[in-house]
């Protein structure tokens, strides 16, 4: 490996790992979602392809790749084509700064948290482009709802993040994890912030019960209505990746990141604890999705402005006062 400078090699490995995580997560989550949805409704879920339907997602992937990309006649041809890419491409970037274990991290940015929030918020733009360019009223309505929802829920989310940042004094994700040593995870210190953050991430990732942008019963598929084949599946993968990122952030900020009972080769293998916590949260998201009905739009905004924002503000003030004392 003398012909490759170590820095270039590191970049290559990081990017490959990031892409593997993105696609692997989409497959695992697609399978888990369908299996859990089935079990919650007392069905077995996918059973036909492979043992208990394990290969179902591979078959679905082949089907989606093989499908024609239909472009509606009066759709904006350029924007319509790039919307799924704009949605999917930024979802890989946060993987570069997420600390999976003390040594498994692409780059430890000093502003890692802000980087993730900045990159992830591009998804709203992608949804707006998708809804606008589709030339379809359902798509446009879904996109408008998504923008309103994301703008509203970003506020409580950032306010709770401020509380954490006040305690840790750093935006570096590794620094935040290292501030939670000895089992003093922030979820025990500020459970309210955890709940607000988790509820806000549910809304940010457009998950049920806040899945108004793609409300099946009203808007067919919302902003994704006109997309077929890989256009659709890029949105689909992006959604699961944003869920993964949101849960990773929750784990890093509140659940102690990679920390857990010691393992051999802990500098690398403690990524197991990280993934375990992330998938517990993702399963919790699936559980929530298959339990609660979709909220109405006024309820959605009321919940944000009347409950989450005041509580987050009060929480921030209390944190600041306690830290100053």
């Amino acid at each position, binding site marked *: 490996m003398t012909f490759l400078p170590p820095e270039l090699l590191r970049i290559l490995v990081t990017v490959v790992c990031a892409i593997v995580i993105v696609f692997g997560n989409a497959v695992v989550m697609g399978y888990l979602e369908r299996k*859990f949805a089935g*079990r919650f409704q*007392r069905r077995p879920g996918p*059973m036909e392809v492979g043992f208990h339907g394990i290969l179902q997602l591979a078959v679905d992937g082949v089907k989606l790749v093989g499908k024609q990309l239909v472009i509606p006649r009066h759709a904006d041809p350029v924007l319509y084509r790039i919307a799924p890419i704009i949605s999917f491409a930024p979802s890989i970037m946060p993987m570069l700064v997420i600390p999976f274990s003390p040594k498994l991290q692409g780059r430890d940015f000093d502003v890692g948290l802000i980087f993730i929030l900045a990159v992830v918020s591009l998804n709203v733009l992608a949804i707006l482009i998708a809804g606008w360019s589709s030339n379809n009223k359902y798509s446009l309505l879904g996109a408008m709802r998504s923008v309103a929802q994301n703008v509203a829920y970003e506020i409580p989310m950032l306010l709770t993040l401020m509380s954490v940042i006040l305690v840790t004094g750093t935006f570096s994700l590794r620094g935040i994890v290292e501030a939670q040593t000895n089992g003093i995870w922030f979820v025990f210190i500020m459970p309210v912030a955890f709940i607000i953050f988790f509820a806000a991430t549910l809304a940010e990732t457009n998950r049920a019960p806040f899945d108004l942008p793609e409300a099946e019963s009203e808007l067919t598929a919302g902003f994704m209505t006109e997309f077929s084949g890989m256009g659709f599946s890029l949105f689909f993968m992006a959604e699961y990746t944003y869920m993964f990122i949101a849960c990773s952030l929750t784990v890093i900020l509140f659940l102690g990141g990679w920390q857990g009972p010691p393992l051999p080769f802990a500098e690398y293998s403690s990524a197991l604890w990280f993934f375990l916590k992330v998938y517990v949260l993702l399963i919790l998201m699936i559980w929530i999705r298959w*339990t609660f009905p979709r909220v109405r739009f006024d309820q959605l905004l009321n919940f944000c402005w009347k409950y989450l924002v005041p509580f987050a503000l009060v929480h921030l003030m209390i944190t600041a006062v306690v830290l100053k004392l």
Partner: protein
Amino acid sequence: MKEYFALIFTGGKSLIVGMMITLREFFRPIVTVQYPRETLPVSPNFRGHTILIRDEEKEFKHRCISCKMCQRECPSGCIDLAGEKREGVKGMVLVKYHLDFTKCSLCGTCVEVCPTDALDFSDEYRHVGFTREEFHYDLLAKVEEKE
């Protein structure tokens, strides 16, 4: 202000109750049937197409005496049967019993009218075919091949 916090409390409680309900359902057994591999037992009241009951004690393994009562009573005219006289055999011998299931309305008149109770409904519900001739059943052949 009191209502505001009461709403949070009751709302949060109802969310947890809802989550517990789905969790309980999660661990209860699956109720759907994996159809091609599993099938539900057919109710004894189910009316499939008519068959000749197999009776091992009879010489021709069925009780039909070719009296043609069913053919005469059938409102749809979907039964076509014929019997013949044979040397050394008492009574008529059934040589043909054709049921045109495309016309049959499963009214059961033939089953009721049969003097020797030779007919009964089958429990067959999976009828598949590409031509209408595939639903013209030869009940005599069916009772013979049923060994």
